[in-house]
């Protein structure tokens, strides 16, 4: 077990207090060499839903979006948070012109390598969502796996206005977010484990996980306190849950009308109680 000094204990004490809504963690974990490697491995594992959805699910998502005519051969599509390009490369194979942006250089290196091996032409850029400044360039924007739910209301609205600007009139915004139902499963108990090397660190470390719920805001967040011989680090992930009603209000305010609401991007018809909702909005 790594050494837990009095100094570290007093930091744990500070970290364990329930924070203000959307107070950020200390560290941008996609910049950490080891964690970004773990993230990429998790994205690329076709058999679990940890960082990206399972390979079969992504296939069905693409199939749904193409067969329903939402995405067509020749469309210009922005893949927001493309990771290692799991959606982007599948869409490129179907003749869609893809621009993929992501915050992780490591994921993009993989994506570019994969595209060049397959002879796919995809424009990948390492960019923060909030640094995009496209104007009327895309027929559609795809954001898969809940990223939109990780922002505060004001940041989300700022992002939506950038996305609105990036779309042509009548362009489509396609994304998914979590619902409150997912929290019933997760609970808010604290969990810990010791590792000799794993997702967060290559060597010996202690992980203290903690969940906080803000039911009145439909917000929940998970934090991960990592202690190793180098010291202590805090990582946080926020999640804002939505209902069809609340996400529709947000989109309408941002200038979109609602074309489809499903339980997921594979097109499962909407039913109450699902852990996700997928939305297709149209720029007015």
């Amino acid at each position, binding site marked *: 077990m790594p050494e*837990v000094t*009095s100094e570290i204990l007093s930091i744990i004490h500070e970290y364990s207090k329930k924070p203000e809504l959307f107070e950020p963690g200390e560290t941008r974990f996609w910049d950490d060499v080891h964690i970004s490697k773990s993230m990429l491995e998790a994205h690329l594992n076709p058999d679990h839903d940890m960082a990206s959805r399972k390979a079969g699910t992504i296939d069905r998502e693409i199939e749904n979006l193409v067969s329903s005519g939402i995405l067509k051969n020749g469309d210009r599509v922005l893949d927001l948070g493309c990771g290692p390009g799991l959606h982007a490369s599948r869409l490129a194979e179907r003749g869609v012109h893809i621009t993929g942006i992501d915050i992780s250089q490591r994921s993009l290196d993989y994506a570019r390598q994969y595209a060049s091996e397959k002879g796919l032409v995809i424009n990948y850029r390492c960019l923060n969502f909030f640094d995009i400044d496209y104007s009327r360039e895309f027929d559609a924007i795809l954001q898969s796996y809940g990223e939109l739910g990780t922002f505060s209301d004001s940041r989300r609205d700022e992002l939506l206005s950038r996305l609105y600007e990036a779309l042509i009139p009548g362009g489509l915004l396609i994304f998914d977010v979590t619902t409150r139902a997912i929290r019933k499963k997760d609970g808010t108990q604290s969990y*810990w484990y010791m590792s000799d090397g794993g997702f967060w660190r290559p060597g010996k470390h202690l992980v203290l996980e903690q969940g906080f719920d803000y039911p009145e805001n439909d917000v929940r967040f998970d934090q991960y306190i990592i202690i190793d011989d180098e010291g202590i680090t805090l990582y946080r992930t926020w999640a804002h849950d939505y209902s069809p009603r609340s996400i529709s209000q947000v989109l309408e305010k941002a200038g979109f009308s609602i074309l489809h609401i499903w339980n997921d991007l594979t097109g499962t018809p909407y039913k109450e109680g699902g852990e996700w909702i997928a939305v297709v909005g149209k720029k007015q």
Partner: protein
Amino acid sequence: MEEATPWHEQDYFWETTAPVMFTERRWEITPVEVDQVISLLGIKAEAHILDLGCGVGRHSLELARRGFQVTGVDRTKQYLKQASERAEQESLKIEFIQEDMRKFCRPDSFNGAISMFTSFSYFEDPEEDRKVALNVYQSLRPGGVFLLETHGKESLARIFQKNSWREDNGILVLQEHRVTKNWSWMENRWIIIQNDKRNEFEVTHRLYAATELVSLLTGCGFKYVDVYGDLAGSKYDHKATRLVVVAHKA
């Protein structure tokens, strides 16, 4: 071969864990707990109450403040010392007795008895749990009432998580939980880290389903036993957070 002293007979365990057992928050909620205890026991001030496993006197002191006559029993000398000092500061007259609950018995003496905060069910031999319940039964006067507040097997099964942790006042507590002996026994590893020092304890105790605890108590002579899901008197159903039984002596 000499058997190791069980965890609950070690002063070092109780002294080390005191800061995380008797947190500020727990002291804060004590008056509310005592309101609820009084209401479930259905007793009036001046009645004589036995607080079995009274620890540092959280409930004993509050009961005495409200005019009850209180006898607190605990095996840990250090706890009783703290409890007595607190009582003295407030000029409360409370009788504190250092004794093992398997031995303490004062026939026909109390109107009510309480065992709070999972301080029952530590003994490996189920006969010893029975002995404790029998001692309480005998120590109560006719019409006396025994309230026992603990973790129920049913609610634990619902919320069970292998590992859990918390931090209180700069003390980190890591716990590992194992359910053994066909859900009748719980084995916990407690790792307590404070002031650059790390202590580990194996803490084990029996798990009772509500009906099992009722059987144990009626088997000792209690006439009837009410079961609740918390001290507020909620039903013991799928939402129960605690197991609270109130046993009546005829």
